[in-house]
């Protein structure tokens, strides 16, 4: 299978890349790791006439803490996240997530920015980023820059708040407090498959009480789903087993799965409940110093 014809552009700087996108209009697409875009082009599900390769822009490849945030450059690969000591030590939920994306070969090229910019509710990072209350940094023409709250980013299947002439440059995640923990759990049919369903959970505690919670769900709706009722159930409690059970039922009710080759709607709701329960439990253990 070979993609349709297009012109390939390999700009040297971010400004050049944005200018190209701006000049070329809606027929141009950003090429990052290419592991969602090129397969779609082979199937003719996408037929851009121009590709603007941002993988050679070295200034989009960093993992660092700055001004209260963990900052991930858009071109950080899943493998880099998986192998980062900082991520393993302080953001295990991100390691959980990158480790279950596709397979190691795909992860060597797939970028975290692409995983989010693609806007596929089956991708794994979006739910994690919901649970982490991430901020998406986007650059546009004439040096413009805006920050989009993750809750305003995903608009529909393969549809995000990004404009055709914008590039997602960074993802910002608030640095966790002392008693914070998160976890991502995914059920897949086999290595390399998209989720039947998955749950990302984060919890912040103060004096033994949960002061904030984030629950994001993968592949059970037209966009990644924030389970707000479930979050509300947890806040202000000590996150007992009984509360966890109730919160997971709420997550299952909030999810909007559709029956397909990965299972019936009913089955997927059951999976959401079980995974949410496990994810909250593990997040709690991590927050309070266990594993």
């Amino acid at each position: 299978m070979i993609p349709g014809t297009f012109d390939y552009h390999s700009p040297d700087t971010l400004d050049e890349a944005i200018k190209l996108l701006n000049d070329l209009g809606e027929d141009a697409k950003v090429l990052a790791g290419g592991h969602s875009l090129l397969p779609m082009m082979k199937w003719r599900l996408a037929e851009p006439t121009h590709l603007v390769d941002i993988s050679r822009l070295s200034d989009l490849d960093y993992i660092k803490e700055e001004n209260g945030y963990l900052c991930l450059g858009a071109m950080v690969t899943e493998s880099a996240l998986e192998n980062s000591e900082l991520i393993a030590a302080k953001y295990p939920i991100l390691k959980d997530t990158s480790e279950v994306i596709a397979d190691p070969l795909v992860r060597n090229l797939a970028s975290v920015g692409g995983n989010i910019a693609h806007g596929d509710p089956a991708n794994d990072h979006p739910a994690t980023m919901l649970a982490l209350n991430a901020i998406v940094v986007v650059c546009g023409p004439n040096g413009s820059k805006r920050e989009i709250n993750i809750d305003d980013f995903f608009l529909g299947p393969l549809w995000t708040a990004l404009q055709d002439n914008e590039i997602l440059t960074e993802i910002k995640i608030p640095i966790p407090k002392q008693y914070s923990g998160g976890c991502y759990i995914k059920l897949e049919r086999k290595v390399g498959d998209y989720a039947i369903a998955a749950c990302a959970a984060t919890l912040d505690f103060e004096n033994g009480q949960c002061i904030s919670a984030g629950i994001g769900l993968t592949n059970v709706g037209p966009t990644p789903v924030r389970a707000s009722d479930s979050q509300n159930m947890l806040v202000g409690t000590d996150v007992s087993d009984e509360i966890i059970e109730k919160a997971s039922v709420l997550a299952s009710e909030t999810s909007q799965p559709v029956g397909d080759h990965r299972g019936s709607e009913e089955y997927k709701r059951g999976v959401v409940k079980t995974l949410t329960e496990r994810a909250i439990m593990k997040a709690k253990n991590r927050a309070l110093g266990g594993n």
Partner: protein
Amino acid sequence: MAKKSITININGTPRSGEVEDRLLLVHFIRDDCALTGTHIGCDSTHCGACTVLLDGTAVKSCTVLAVQADGREVSTIEGMEGAALHPLQEGFFEEHGLQCGFCTPGMIMSAKHLLDNNPKPNEEEIRCGISGNLCRCTGYQNIVKSVQYASNKIQESESVGGE
């Protein structure tokens, strides 16, 4: 139709060509360079038969454009043998790591990436390292043994060399 001149260093030899922008790296390797050891299996980024090293990192060459590899280094199965078989090749031979052999070049390139980054992987790490490569014959058991063989062999030769 858009064309670009590219030069890719494949197994230490610069290979130049005028290629269509949409040409996939695997086709450049097989058709333009006649290095047919790299296989095309599923053509949909699943099977890993087309695995090569791009600047030392294992990637599926059916999902990389040849123009993306311009100016970079690619290693394929043909580059593995030096004066003798590479320990991985020897391992697959000694431990019966293949039956039909179709997945083998990709399997070996993935295993090369694994051992370059983790010279003494345990069984689980080996299984994870090759999880992007499908084999329909062996049940993976002997492939794991082949990689273990290579890992041991490399350790031994390094400790001998170091004395």
